[in-house]
């Protein structure tokens, strides 16, 4: 039993790290742009398919797909922002309109992936050497350990960017006081485009990690990651990247530990149970902004 619990904790940290990345990028989008990006899961799965296509066609190892995914998704996000979002801000209720539009985008993206890759579940037939490593008394696949290392580096880099650089502080300032950021002279259109591009790049990179960590993915897997992303965002506190980091890991641990003690089908119920409990006890989330929104 001890081994199973330890296994649950290690896998919970790894999977939770991936959920944290999804949550951090999604909460950044919501905080800065007030956009409910229901297509975020499709962006993630798009990253998985990119890694799959690069490996299948060019033999490029998934680790080398990471910079390709980051750059291509950043460029795509930048373009998509100018194509889709400035007009949306002129509607009476941009948040609801963004939800509806991005829901449409998620269906369209899933359909495009279906068209290109068909409905079968895919996986990248790539393995590290050695295939697994001993961590204490348990064995963990090397791919998962590598993915977790990348999650830690990315989360640390993102945290450093948001808390130590002026553009990062500008993004956080936009979350704290969206009108004041215009008053002090920041070009919010460019800043918003950057936020959308950055969130898309993180989603693309996360997709490559999903392909490493999870056994398979298909064009319709995106919705599942969007929902988990939203749970993490609400758990952590809307618009709070550090909250999303903490919430992602907590959600991953809860999900993986639930499978140790309960039937596998109960795992999502436990996750949603935590969400409902947090909303009831602390509606602002674990680390909701205290003084200012």
């Amino acid at each position: 039993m001890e081994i199973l619990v330890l296994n649950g904790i290690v896998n919970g940290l790894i999977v939770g790290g991936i959920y944290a990345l999804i949550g951090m990028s999604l909460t950044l989008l919501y905080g800065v742009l007030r956009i409910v990006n229901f297509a975020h899961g499709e962006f993630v799965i798009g990253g998985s398919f990119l890694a799959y296509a690069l490996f299948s066609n060019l033999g490029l190892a998934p680790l080398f797909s990471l910079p390709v995914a980051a750059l291509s998704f950043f460029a795509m996000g930048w373009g998509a922002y100018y194509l889709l979002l400035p007009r949306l801000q002129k509607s009476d209720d941009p948040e609801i309109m963004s939800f509806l539009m991005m829901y449409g985008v998620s269906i369209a993206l899933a359909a495009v992936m279906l068209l290109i890759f068909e409905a079968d579940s895919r996986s990248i037939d790539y393995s590290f050497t050695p295939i697994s490593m001993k961590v204490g008394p348990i064995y963990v696949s090397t791919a998962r350990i590598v993915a977790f290392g990348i999650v830690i580096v990315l989360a640390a880099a993102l945290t450093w960017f948001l808390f130590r650089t002026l553009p990062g502080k500008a993004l956080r300032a936009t979350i704290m006081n969206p009108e004041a950021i215009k008053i002090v002279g920041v070009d919010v259109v460019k800043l918003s485009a950057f936020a959308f591009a950055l969130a898309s790049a993180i989603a693309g990179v996360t997709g490559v990690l999903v392909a490493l960590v999870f056994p398979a993915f298909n064009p319709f897997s995106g919705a599942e990651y969007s929902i988990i992303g939203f749970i993490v965002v609400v758990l952590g506190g809307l618009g709070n990247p550090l909250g999303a980091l903490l919430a992602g890991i907590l959600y991953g641990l809860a999900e993986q530990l639930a499978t140790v003690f309960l039937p596998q089908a109960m795992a999502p119920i436990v996750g949603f149970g935590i969400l409902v409990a947090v909303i009831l006890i602390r509606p602002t989330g674990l680390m909701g902004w205290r003084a200012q929104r």
Partner: protein
Amino acid sequence: MATETPVLELRAVDVAYHGDIRILQGMSMAVRPGKITGVIGPNGAGKSTALRTLYGLLKPVAGDVLVDGEVVTGMPPWRFIERGISLVPQNRSLFNELSVEDNLQLACWSFRRDKARVAEALERAYAQFPILKDRRTQYAGAMSGGQQRFLELGRALALQPRAVLLDEPTAMIAPKLAAEIYEFIHGLPKQGITVLLVDQNVRQCVRVADHVYVLELGRNKIDGSASDFTKDADLRNLIAEWVDYRIDA
């Protein structure tokens, strides 16, 4: 003076919320260079709306906004900073969970890569309000209301603007600090800074302003020099009736 091109101007501006609720109707206003222009009026007169329209935060449905005589209607707020115009709004515009220094640095966004200029701007703010230097690592949200107002003023003036728009600068501020702030505002034209002062405090506004606009229900009611307001008994009575405050002769 009458021929000088205003730094900022509203010309026959209509502003509407939610499509059809007109807050400003045919409002006109000119902010003359090197002067303090005051705007007074009862609650709901459209004072703050006029100021927000002048700064590009609201887009008029009719009429024009001008900077130095050039029509700039629809220009986004961040372009006003580039043209040497800063705003201190009525509601707190600080980033509470950033430090005092971070708040000041964000105001230098348009020239953020010029480290020497940023350092100079910060020093300017610290020189004008030394308390900010003492608190530079503290969260802005942890300071008192008066200190927060100093930070907003310091942030606006650190950029050496040629014009500053002030909306109720002493609202919710202790009287002693408020008096200091009015003295500070009074001295700004001597530094070459044009001021537009929107205020509920009629006495102080008329005292420091060179020219005063009175608004009522989103329209211009009257305007004149500060001396008109103190000398003309009819005008004084009119103001007393509108804003429930009698100006001393």
